[in-house]
């Protein structure tokens, strides 16, 4: 199925999504018939116990993993039948990912880390650098452009990761425990940053988290329990 370039208001649709793993010959149902529909600009908090399937769901949405059954639509692109190569391009262009452990590339400077997804598209030069710089200023790292990840604090590294997730102007931001590796104050700052950039740019964002802060600010709340995605109202 061809990947289309147009962006549409319905951001994400999950239909009857199921995924199970085998462990020691035993089949474990991680996600069972999950359904959800997110509009453009929705900020969603995804909660649940450790190992309940939050990361699995994010991996399915980002095309890192494949569902056993059901459908995943990003905009009006169905991911199920896409090849590995096509899924990679979806991830690169339409999804921004923020990891718990930041996952910056240690051999690239801050600005290069941010530019990476754009450069993977073959874009180079002043335009890319200027966009990356703009984003880094936005996340408060305008003075650390040429630093390397190993000299940054955890919070600073996560800011770089957020900027990297935004460089290709994605439809969807997926954040997997983005504050799980940070102290409380820094976690709060990062959450605020994530929320503000998502809201400023009208991005759909799913944050898998334990943090009560985001639960309060999210538009929608989903809980994964026994493989089911249970909708609930957010505190706001």
């Amino acid at each position, binding site marked *: 199925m061809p990947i289309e370039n147009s962006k549409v208001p319905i951001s994400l649709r999950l239909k009857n999504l199921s995924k199970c793993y085998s462990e020691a010959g035993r089949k474990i149902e991680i996600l069972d018939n999950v359904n959800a529909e997110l509009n453009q600009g929705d900020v969603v908090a995804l909660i649940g116990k450790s190992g309940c399937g939050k990361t699995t769901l994010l991996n399915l949405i980002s095309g890192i993993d494949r569902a056993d059954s059901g459908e995943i639509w990003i905009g009006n692109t169905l991911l199920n039948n896409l090849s590995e190569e096509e899924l990679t391009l979806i991830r690169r262009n339409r999804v921004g990912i923020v990891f718990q452990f930041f*996952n910056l590339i240690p051999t690239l400077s801050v600005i*290069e880390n941010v530019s990476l997804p754009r450069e993977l598209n073959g874009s180079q030069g002043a335009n890319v650098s200027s966009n990356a710089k703009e984003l880094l200023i936005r996340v408060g790292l305008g003075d650390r452009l040429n630093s390397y990840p190993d000299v940054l604090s955890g919070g600073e590294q996560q800011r770089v990761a957020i900027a990297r997730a935004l460089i290709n102007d994605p439809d969807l931001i997926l954040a997997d425990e983005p504050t799980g590796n940070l102290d409380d104050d820094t976690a709060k700052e990062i959450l605020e940053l994530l929320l503000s950039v998502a809201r400023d740019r009208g991005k759909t964002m799913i944050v898998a988290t334990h943090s009560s802060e985001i639960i309060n600010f999210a538009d929608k709340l989903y809980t994964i329990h026994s493989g089911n995605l249970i909708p609930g109202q957010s505190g706001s």
Partner: protein
Amino acid sequence: MNYPLLHVSIGYIKKHLLQSILLLIGIAFSVALIVSVDIANQSASRSFSLSKEILSTKSTHHILGTYSDFDEEIYKSLKLKLGLKNLAPIVEDYVNIAELDGRAVKLLGTDFFADLIFHDGQNSPLSNLTQNTLTELIAKPGAALVSSDIAQSAGIKIGETLNVTYGSETLSIEIIGVLDSQNDELSKSLGGLLLTDISTAQELLGKVGLLSQIDLVIDEETPEGLSALQSIRDYLPAGVEVKSKDLLLGSAKSLTRSFELNLTALSLLALFVGVFLIYNIVSFSVIQRRSIIGTLRSIGATRRQIFKMIMAEALAIGFIGSLIGIAGGVLLGRSIVGLVTRSINDLYFTLTVSNFSVSPETIIKGLLAGILAALFAALVPAYEASSFRPINILRRSSFESFFLKSIKLFGLIGVIVIALGYVLIILPTKSLVLSLISVFLILFGASLLVPISTTLLMKLFSLILSPMGLIGRMSPRNIIRSASRTAVAIASLTVAISVILSVSIMIGSFRSTVVNWLDSTLTADIFISMDSPNISSQAGLNPKILDEVINTSGVDRVATVRRISYNSPGYGLFNLVAVTKALATENREFIWKEMDNEQLWDQMQHNSILISESFAYRNNIEPGPAKTIELQTDQGLKEFDVSGVYYDYGAQTGVLLISDDLYRSLWQDDKITSLGVYVSNIDHIDKTVRELRTKLSKYSNLVIRSNDNLKQSAIKTFDRTFTVTSALRILIAIVAFISVLSSLMALQLEREREFGVFRAIGMTVSQLRGMIFLENGLIGLASGLFSIPLGVALSLILIYVINLRSFGWTLNFSIEPRYFIEAIGIALIASIAAGIYPAYLIGKEDVGKLIREE
């Protein structure tokens, strides 16, 4: 070792079997090379020793002529006048079997009633001979026993006739039995042998009334023995000497020592490369277990226990790898023995006994080499593992930054080590061992310089590749970031490629020197010689041939060569070569000569001789005036002036060149070894060759070749002597290849999580594969580039130091651009091949699994 830690180790090895297998292969290969070369060296020595034990395993001494056979009356007198017992006379020389491609075998005749034959009782190699066989051997003219290896190879049966050539004669020998022994060791000493009664051998070899050797048993530990030895020495005429078997073995060993030492050094180089491999894999295993080790430390495992755990793993794998290596070495040894024996036959003396024996020392050497190399290589990673702090586990990046901070220090130590190696080279000594140590020091020093050189080169590559985008900039940086691993991989590949390159340059230089030397030395248009001449044979052409050649139409003049093997107490084994004017000084290249060629030849008619460079080097004769050499001649002891030292790349034993007239006047020898024919019209060489072949067809075993033909044949022999070196060179390349393959593969596999991140943020599989191959290619390119200056430096040492000290030959340095292309090509192929498996895996791996947090 503590049981739970042992369990952790076993669990790890099981889980990472591929790594352990690569480690085992690396150790096994290195050990196999050491073992096989040791087997070959020991077998060659044992072959020489066995060839002296044909009549009795217990013979202790041999009476030999310095340069020729001696009167058989000496044997009789020793028995009758001196009352000696336990001795046996021998007449022997090397003959060739046409059916076996001219293979050289020893024709040996003895007196079967000599008491030495029965000295060993049932242990005698000849104990199986029945009375009937003995009677037939003595009574039947031309009767001989053949060793079972010849009988088998030639497919000859009892009662059949075997035609062998000796000089330009064909000898018909009737085989009346096969020599064999149930005892393996005894049977080996009978290899490559035709055994006859003494009178038969004397007749066949044209040595009636002469003996080649007398074997005897003398106990030097007893006063009687010592006194007997003294009385023998007093009795023997000039030119005949009594020598202990150990002394003969020692002098044979000293001749081949350099050759064998060079092979041993090459095999140790493989171990040197192997150490890098072990370091890489053990170090990788430590990194993989960083968190496990940290946990073990936090629950109370001491630094010492962790250190012991890693060292115990290295010991276990070193032990198993060594055992596999020993088994492989024994198998490989069979091929190497053949190559070494052939080289010794070409360069030093004829070995007809083909022995293959594996001594316990060889096994112990192999085992120790493998285990010690494994333990030595594991020291640093084991220390690294034991330094992990229990709470805050030292991350790899911390170690890398520590490593990067240390690279200047490594570089400085490298420069000091190289300087030390250089000092050892320029020391005024002829020690080959010192020069080989200096090679190892230079290689080690250069390895220490690799990290800093790699960092600088990669920074340069980063600039050059920046137009390629981030991948182009990132790949060189990734290499720097993992410098503790990549630099070791680059160092091991650099060392291996530089060794390959230096040996290629050395062989190439040697070859071009020999080609030039042949061009200037082989001036005659046609050469007539015996087919398959043995370096140790005293046989010659029928003197009538000379007249027939001179009287052939188209022949302008004829030069003669007489070569005899001379074993003098003062100068050891060398070739005395008598030549006529055309071959003496014309076109010959001298290191030093006292006068011009005309005057030189005049002097050579009277009292002067020329010596080859290797003879001068071996006997510490500095080229220059006022040097003399004393030689035993048939006219008594004679002193000769050395009037010139010339370049010669023939026999390594060295050559002493004398004018034919002077030789014939001092030695009673009318034989000719070969002829050089000059034609009156150069366009008619082929016609003259054909004419000579027709005319001389009645003589067997003659080879009549044009100048070009002979040169090609000489180059073929030259190439043959380097077969073993070339084979070892390939094996070193294999060890290096495994080393690079394992370390780069491990390095890439270690980064699978990073690759997962790349994939997650949108890098396609093909982009990732491109990055892996680019990084590996850069590593290969760096190794290739570093190996060029190192390889050239090593080749200079090989050519101007090691070769000179080993063989006494000065070679002209000659280099070809293709060597460099080959060096870089091999390095690139090895490193890029190492990326194939990780690149394949990256397309198969589950990205989610790869990025799962620790």
